[in-house]
């Protein structure tokens, strides 16, 4: 009996039913797409924020007076690849070594680094691309990167001071180097000659040594827990801290003796702290907008449902007149609402798959991660929308006096 009624109801009113399903599907698609954006926004934007440069700098540990002046100390170049073996290795997205040397006679400083270098990671098949290109994307070279030992780039400021341009030569530590291009960074590198790390090491007899390693890592924003001193934590708390991707815990793992020996890894605070704040604010913004849009579209869809049921006042009256009780009447309409909700929910979920993939590609160049939890969530949203939309008119319909309604009054 119930089944026949519902089947007839759908068959006889294809148009209004389609309209309702479309409206539920649109509302659900919108909600699910925005939710998938909200879930993934932190990941996506934190990758973008990495263009602000390294958030951890590893340098040799020095104590006492050696901190200012004193004998220069170095890190081992061979330790660099070990950075990709720590607990948070997948969060390390960039590594750039720097070796700074100075020609005491002329006072000219030179920096050795990698532009793009494949490094082999212990126990990993695919090599990792290290170098300043991924850590300092703002470095811009007018000319080409030096390939030979006798070549170098000149920083913009030193080039201006010494009137150097591509093709000229410059004297450094008794060697004549050809300038292959001008490097603009807006930082202290503008005052230096910059060349391939190997060349600078060979020139100065510092083979296998680097003075600093710039690390770009994806991190979890700092919170009150992260601000605590790890030394005061209980063992359990320490473990939780160590296994959360805070910039401080990643730095701690990098300065481990088995990674960079004799090193201290310090977060670059302006970068690390701002990143956390921006990410928190932006996620909050997206969540708020998602909430706003979901509630607005849910109410809008409910309005469609209300309209759809209101028009069937007479039907309710008729059912009552032929002897249906409240439970039967309610179950017919509720079942209809649920069918509409489920159909709309499934279509909406499928649509949101397309939308969030496109949205991610368009804005971030990679699809948004479509979490499995979105399917039950979308169905929940669509059912909630339709049932809440059906609730009011059904309640009103139950109060109808059959005779009055059938006569055409309201």
């Amino acid at each position: 009996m119930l089944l026949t009624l519902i089947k007839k109801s759908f068959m006889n009113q294809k148009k209004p039913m389609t309209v309702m399903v479309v409206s539920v599907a649109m509302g659900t698609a919108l909600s699910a797409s925005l939710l998938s954006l909200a879930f993934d926004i932190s990941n996506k934007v934190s990758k973008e924020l990495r263009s602000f440069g390294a958030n951890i700098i590893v340098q040799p540990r020095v104590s006492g007076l050696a901190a200012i002046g004193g004998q220069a100390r170095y890190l081992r170049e061979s330790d660099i690849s070990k950075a990709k073996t720590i607990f948070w290795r997948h969060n390390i997205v960039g590594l750039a070594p720097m070796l700074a040397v100075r020609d005491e006679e002329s006072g000219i400083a030179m920096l050795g680094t990698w532009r793009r270098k494949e490094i082999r990671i212990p126990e990993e098949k695919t090599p990792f691309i290290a170098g300043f290109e991924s850590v300092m994307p703002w470095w811009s070279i007018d000319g080409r990167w030096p390939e030979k030992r006798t070549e170098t780039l000149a920083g913009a400021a030193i080039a201006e001071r010494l009137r150097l341009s591509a093709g000229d030569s410059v004297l450094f530590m008794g060697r004549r180097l050809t300038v292959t291009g001008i490097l603009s960074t807006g930082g202290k590198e503008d005052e230096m000659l910059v060349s391939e790390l190997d060349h600078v090491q060979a020139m100065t007899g510092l083979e296998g040594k680097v003075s600093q390693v710039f690390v770009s890592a994806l991190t979890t924003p700092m919170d009150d827990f992260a601000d605590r001193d790890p030394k005061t934590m209980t063992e359990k708390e320490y473990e939780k801290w160590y296994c959360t991707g805070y910039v401080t815990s990643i730095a701690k793992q990098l300065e481990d003796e088995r990674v960079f020996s004799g090193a201290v890894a310090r977060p670059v605070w302006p970068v690390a702290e701002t990143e956390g704040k921006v990410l928190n604010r932006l996620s909050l913004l997206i969540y708020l907008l998602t909430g706003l849009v979901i509630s607005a579209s849910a109410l809008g869809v409910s309005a469609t449902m209300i309209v759809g049921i209101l028009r069937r006042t007479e039907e309710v009256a008729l059912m009552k007149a032929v002897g249906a009780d409240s439970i039967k009447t309610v179950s017919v309409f509720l079942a209809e609402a649920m069918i509409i909700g489920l159909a709309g929910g499934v279509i909406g979920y499928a649509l949101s798959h397309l939308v969030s993939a496109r949205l991610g590609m368009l804005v971030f160049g990679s699809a948004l991660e479509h979490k499995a939890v979105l399917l039950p969530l979308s169905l929940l949203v669509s059912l909630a929308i339709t049932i809440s939309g059906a609730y009011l008119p059904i309640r009103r319909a139950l109060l109808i006096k059959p005779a009055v309604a059938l006569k055409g009054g309201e």
Partner: protein
Amino acid sequence: MDNWLIYFLRKSIAQRKGRFALSSVAVMLAVGSMTALATVSIGVRDKIGLQLRQYGANMMVTDASGGEIPMDTANQVLSSSAHIKDAAFHVYGTSRVKGLSVEIIGMEAQRMGTYRVAGRMPRGEDEIMVGINLKEALSIEAGMTMRLGDGKAYTVTGIFERGSEEDSAVVMTLGSAQRLFKIDAVSAILINGDTRYLGEIERAVSQRFPRLRVKTLRQVAVAEERVLDRIEMLMLVVSLIVLFSSSIALGSTMAASIIERMEEIGLMKALGATRRDILGFFVSEAAAAGLAGSLSGYVFGVLSAEAVSVTAFGSFIAPRTVFLPAAAIFGLIISVLSAVYPVRDALKIGPAVILRGE
């Protein structure tokens, strides 16, 4: 307009207040969420830009010959371009501490930027904070006093860590540094300019002050521009998705409310109303609901945008009045369009068929 039309409309709205309100609310919700998104989209650049400013300045002005910039010139630089959002004065120098030459940085107390300080930042004349690299070398702790080159004793308010070369320096207020070095000038002006107009700022400053050197700090400038562009793009795409799907949802609500009134259309036809009469009647009713809904939707949207902005960024957002006519036009178009189609469908069917209820 015919008198009967107005009479009909009035009666129709008055007798079906609930349903008229329902249509208006549907328009209001759709227009409201779009207005909110559009308002936030326009404002997001400024709001996130404000956050990104903590990464540091994106321009630096120094004296071209390596000297100092007199205070009055420095103040004039700030007013030389409207695109300068914020600026900080810095004084750099060195002073002898316990036989070592230590770098001193003076900056305004309220613009010290992002430091991790164990203790607190210096505020007064005789206060300093010391970089973490100097902590051991000078065996200094927060709370101790330290004599600088001028022989005065300074209170160490904290030990700071920044993760840059500044960690080997001593930071004090601008006033203290100017007194220490006996100058009424600054070494550098660090500017946060609107990333889209850095070139203009550079031109404006270097034209007015040929003796100054303006440098774009590419690390912050390039990254800022990139991130802001992405976020703006994101908001734009989200707004478009919301625009599209809420128009469809709104359209179906409006259509459903017309489909419900098929019998009315049949009755009107049976009583001798022409196609134009009927279309005109329904279109005017939809337009009335659309207009009422759009106006309240605009207000609802602006209020939501403010609520979102205050919660996420702790500050209000400037509402754009241009969205008011845009909202009204959008609400009108969608409601009228979604009325026209079902009514035209209904008109194709003979009145007898509709009235019989098939």
